[in-house]
């Protein structure tokens, strides 16, 4: 990036969307109630199979006062726009994300005066998180939760190695939140180690709103000793710009081009109610006790955009699923070099089902691919392996392959008692309520829905000759106007 170029951030991405796909960025000026109305609108858009980035400009804050911050949601809901963020295609975005995440870029450090996120600085009693438009999304939600927050911690003993993860912040007070630190995550390990070794609290920040390639970079699966700011530079395609924090200066750098940064301390023992909440599996999770964060400072842009995630929709699906597709592809490729692509469809919340497309060259590759894919992430539960002629972005076509190319007495693998996330309602534990990392298990498996490897014969799929398909255009025969009026069927 030359000094003349604008750094990539949320605004540069929205400008690109506005220029290339203006119909996929909508602004809602009419007042929308943070209690359920935002979700109602987004759920209705989902049901209409429309996934525009949606900016709500007329809102009231948590305390019911006119809100200074617009709310942006559905940033990741369109796969086409996710592809745009990575200069990729709908089919390849998971793979391109993965390639970028392996090409680390050392961050660039800039002064506070150049950092957009420092345009407004509030410290101590000036901090009031209730001023942000934090929605109440679903009917049983136990409180207001900041969802678009990338919680970041740093290990200063190891040369400033930062860990980043999307972890929710439940509002407890104007300067107090619980942090959804999941046991086993790197941030949790940092916290556990810090408390064990020093007895002191852990400094942490949460940043909200950035270029989607930076946001997704925060979800890259890397060892705890890999600096995730450098990984985010890789996914972003340019060094992530950082600036000193208000609370710890250069010892804890924060993303300079974020919309909002929250700085605080996670004290050693205190726990708070991280209330009933909706999750990506489209169910509620019960209340848990989580570490709290005492917020010391917030900084934000003068006209900051509050980025929210649409829970239980394609927005949340893609945010978690697209990064995982690349990891699965890389893992399967080690045993099946002819793997073509991987898709985690919304029908499995982009975590539980994996469709793996291979060019089959030898018997057994379907089963090898299942085993490899199941080992990548504990949330992957069912793997369907298909041939390269199957469009893995079309559930119906994958199910057609299952229908016509699998025999479950021979082609299905079931492995009982594998570790599973508690988000899966069918996961079970010997001691219900024990939320520890390895407590829950479930049966996982896969279906090899591939044809026999050549030269073994198999039925031949019907098709219209390619040259004719390419030549015939519907609008030439039906007419564009009539074509647009024919309703979509169920």
């Amino acid at each position, binding site marked *: 990036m030359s000094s003349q170029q604008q750094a990539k951030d949320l605004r540069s991405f929205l400008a690109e969307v506005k220029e290339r796909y203006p119909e996929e960025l909508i602004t809602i000026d009419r007042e929308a109630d943070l209690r359920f109305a935002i979700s109602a609108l987004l759920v209705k858009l989902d049901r209409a199979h429309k996934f525009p980035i949606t900016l709500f400009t007329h809102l009231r804050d948590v305390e019911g006062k006119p809100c200074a911050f617009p709310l942006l949601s559905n940033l990741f809901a369109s796969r086409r726009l996710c592809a745009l963020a990575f200069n990729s295609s709908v089919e390849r975005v998971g793979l391109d994300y993965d390639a970028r995440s392996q090409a680390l870029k050392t961050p660039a450090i800039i002064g506070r005066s150049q950092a957009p996120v420092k345009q407004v600085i509030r410290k101590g009693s000036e901090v009031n998180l209730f001023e942000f438009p934090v929605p109440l999304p679903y009917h*049983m939600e*136990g409180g207001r939760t900041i969802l678009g927050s990338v919680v970041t911690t740093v290990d200063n003993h190891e040369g400033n190695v930062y860990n980043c993860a999307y972890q929710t912040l439940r509002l407890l007070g104007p300067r107090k939140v619980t942090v959804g630190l999941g046991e086993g995550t790197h941030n949790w390990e940092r916290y556990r180690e810090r408390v064990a070794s020093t007895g002191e609290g852990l400094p942490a920040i949460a940043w909200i709103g950035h270029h989607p390639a930076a946001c997704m970079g925060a979800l890259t699966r890397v060892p705890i000793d890999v600096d995730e700011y450098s990984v985010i530079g890789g996914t972003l395609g340019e060094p992530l710009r950082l600036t000193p924090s208000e609370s710890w200066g250069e010892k804890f750098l924060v993303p300079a081009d974020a919309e909002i940064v929250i700085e605080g301390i996670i004290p050693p023992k205190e726990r708070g109610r991280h209330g009933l909440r909706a999750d990506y599996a489209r169910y509620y999770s*019960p*209340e*848990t*006790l989580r570490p709290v964060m005492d917020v010391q400072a917030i900084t934000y842009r003068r006209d900051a955009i509050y980025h929210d995630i649409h829970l239980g929709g394609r927005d949340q699906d893609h945010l978690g699923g697209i990064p995982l597709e690349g990891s699965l592809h890389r893992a399967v490729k080690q045993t099946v070099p002819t793997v073509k692509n991987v898709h985690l469809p919304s029908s499995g919340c982009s975590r539980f089902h994996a469709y793996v497309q291979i060019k089959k060259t030898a018997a057994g590759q379907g089963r090898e691919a299942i085993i490899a894919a199941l080992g990548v992430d504990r949330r992957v539960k069912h793997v369907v392996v298909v041939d390269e002629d199957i469009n893995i972005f079309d559930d119906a076509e994958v199910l057609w392959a299952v229908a016509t190319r699998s025999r479950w007495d021979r082609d299905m693998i079931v492995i009982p008692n594998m570790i599973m996330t*508690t988000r899966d309602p069918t996961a079970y534990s010997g001691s*219900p309520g024990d939320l520890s990392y390895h407590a829950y298990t479930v049966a996982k498996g896969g279906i090899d829905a591939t044809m026999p490897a050549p030269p073994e014969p198999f039925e031949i799929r019907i098709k219209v000759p390619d040259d004719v398909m390419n030549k015939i255009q519907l609008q030439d025969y039906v007419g564009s106007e009539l074509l647009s009026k024919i309703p979509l069927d169920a």
Partner: protein
Amino acid sequence: MASSMRVVCPGCDEEFLVSPQFEKMKIAAKCPFCEKEFPIEEAKRVVRPSPILLIK
């Protein structure tokens, strides 16, 4: 996670989920609808998960 308990709030009669961890640690349930906090034994109804889980 199907091992959550379903409890009915004594304040507003709404049903919601509570983790068995809360019962074990004697932490009060908090109703997301009326925000009433109450010991789980005071719930109007408690449905605990089967120990084996998910009998279908």
